[in-house]
């Protein structure tokens, strides 16, 4: 996985709450057997609407998505994360994420930055009044920044320490776990015999 330290890019205001993963990528787009090529499915239903934010310049070149609470609820499909990444997003900012989506983001290298709802409101206002404005997410200092002068926004975001460390180091989770092989073997030896097996 690539290291993530800091990213600056065009902010995209998605003024919606409860954006479930079926909205991020509908089931019809989940049939690919690779991790790429999902960008066409990203917000597929909404992208039929010419006024949808990603159909408007300069938002279409955005890389930091700013969404309302409960982003990524519902289906566990990691394709939602891949679709955002395949499109070009590096970070999503929201006051609350679906658990599985947040976990998937951390594994796949998309930054899910949890901020106060007021910060999202201010970012929305800024990004709508100044289309193309940049947002910076800094994982080392856990801060989000946007705007200049009196409109400047700077606040902290939440991410759990372990995910932050893994993203900063670009570490492969499976590799870390396999370094604990001896402990897994010891645990396996202690499992009761009544536990079921499939073979």
């Amino acid at each position: 996985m690539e290291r993530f330290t800091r990213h600056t890019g065009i902010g995209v205001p998605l003024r919606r709450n409860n954006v479930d993963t079926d909205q991020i990528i509908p089931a019809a787009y989940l049939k690919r057997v690779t991790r790429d090529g999902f960008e066409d499915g990203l917000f597929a239903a909404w992208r039929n609407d010419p006024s949808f934010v990603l159909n408007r310049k300069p938002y279409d070149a955005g890389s930091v998505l700013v969404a309302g609470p409960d982003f990524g609820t519902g289906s566990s499909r990691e394709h939602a994360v891949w679709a955002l990444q395949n499109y070009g997003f590096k970070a999503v900012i929201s006051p609350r994420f679906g658990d599985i989506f947040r976990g998937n983001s951390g594994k796949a290298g998309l930054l899910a930055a949890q901020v106060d709802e007021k910060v999202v409101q201010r970012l929305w206002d800024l990004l709508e009044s100044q289309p193309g404005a940049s947002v910076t997410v800094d994982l080392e200092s856990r801060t989000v920044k946007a705007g200049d002068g009196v409109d400047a926004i700077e606040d902290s975001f939440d991410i759990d320490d372990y995910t932050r460390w893994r993203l900063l180091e670009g570490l492969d989770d499976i590799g870390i776990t396999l370094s604990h092989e001896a402990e897994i073997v010891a645990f396996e030896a202690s499992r009761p015999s009544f536990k079921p097996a499939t073979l």
Partner: protein
Amino acid sequence: MGKTLAEKVWDEHVVRSGDGEPDLLFIDLHLIHEVTSPQAFEGLRLAGRQVRRPDLTLATEDHNVPTLDWDKPIADPVSRTQVETLRRNAEEFGVRLHPLGDLDQGIVHIIGPQLGLTQPGMTIVCGDSHTSTHGAFGALAFGIGTSEVEHVLATQTLPQARPKTMAVTVNGALPEGVTAKDLVLTLIAHTGTGGGQGYVVEYRGPAIEALSMEGRMTVCNMSVEWGAKAGLIAPDQKTLDYLKGRKEAPQGEEWDAAVAYWQTLVTDDDVVFDEEIVLDASTMTPFVTWGTNPGQGVPLGASVPSPDQFDDANDKIAAEKALEYMGLQAGTPMREIKVDTVFVGSCTNGRIEDLRLAAQIIEGRHVADRTRLLVVPGSARVRLQAEDEGLDVIFKEAGAEWRGAGCSMCLGMNPDQLAPGERSASTSNRNFEGRQGKGGRTHLVSVPVAAATAVRGTLSTPADLEPFEARRPAPQDKAE
């Protein structure tokens, strides 16, 4: 201080815990299907890794499979490629697979319990958010993403941050005709879709204890719809009765040892949960959704709410958007909403008990003009059991379509989809925009409401139907 049921199961599975790192949990059962596994197997291949414990892994085909002509090659080439990829991966990595056409094929969350593989005190994961279903047996079961699927395949473990604990205590008794589905829809309307976020939830209290295992699975199934990581129910005599004699349940002395362990799986009396919700089942009524998330629901006897009724600004906007998408006017009585398609099936309500209940209401009646009723068994064995009991004949005589097993219209990944603007009453779990087909409008309902709605063509309960004399008694057999 004592421990909650969830904490007991958690602690039994900690392989390693260290300061500043999540617990490494051992996974007792890993369920796999065709949609969320191909990239995980590819990851193993690229890294030169094996499946560590194929003997704790089980694959089936459910999300993408057709429910018509299921005995022929899959017509959609992209779906076929995905299913064939699973078959190749299962063979290459030595994983047991129940493919389309196999007697044990079916929705992954239906076949685990049906085989007896889902047992109390286990950790169960699957690349599917409705894995919470298995919590009905007192297992800690949750959905994971594809990177985690790869992690479990490679290591049979998962690093997991310890969740908070919550109790949902449901007192009283559900009134006649009110089901587990109504109970959980009522709960989600109360909490909202994010109310359970960060929690593992234990459902308890007299109304939960009174539910059948099937009803408990329906409740646990929808835990994720209010954001909970998992939902579980302490095992009791009903759990043991359900499991005893199933193909993959322990036998003989192993059974006795397992039961002795399972009986320890209760929350200790002196436990304080991080959060508790208390509900009264006796006030519950048939409950349906009007909007585009499972928390946007009302009693069937109520009307479509107005966005002005919501205090929270976000809820107000969400209600406006939902009404627009659903093509509904505030103030319309829910009972006057006309439905084009009724779907009975899914991991929420696709078990034999659900089909019996639907058949009991449908028998001798007919599906309304311009309404279609799709009945999709949750597994091949549920289909065969229903056919043994003659339920398929009842459905077909009423004008319903009787299909093969799979996820079907719950997520519309196969050809079973709503057309744009088409409205459904669905026993499934999600009413998200486009969930059942692009532009489709979904009302989540219980099985009795689905059946009555199919007959009347508008959202209805069995009490709305004309009396029908020749009711047959519901058969009592198990699903196997």
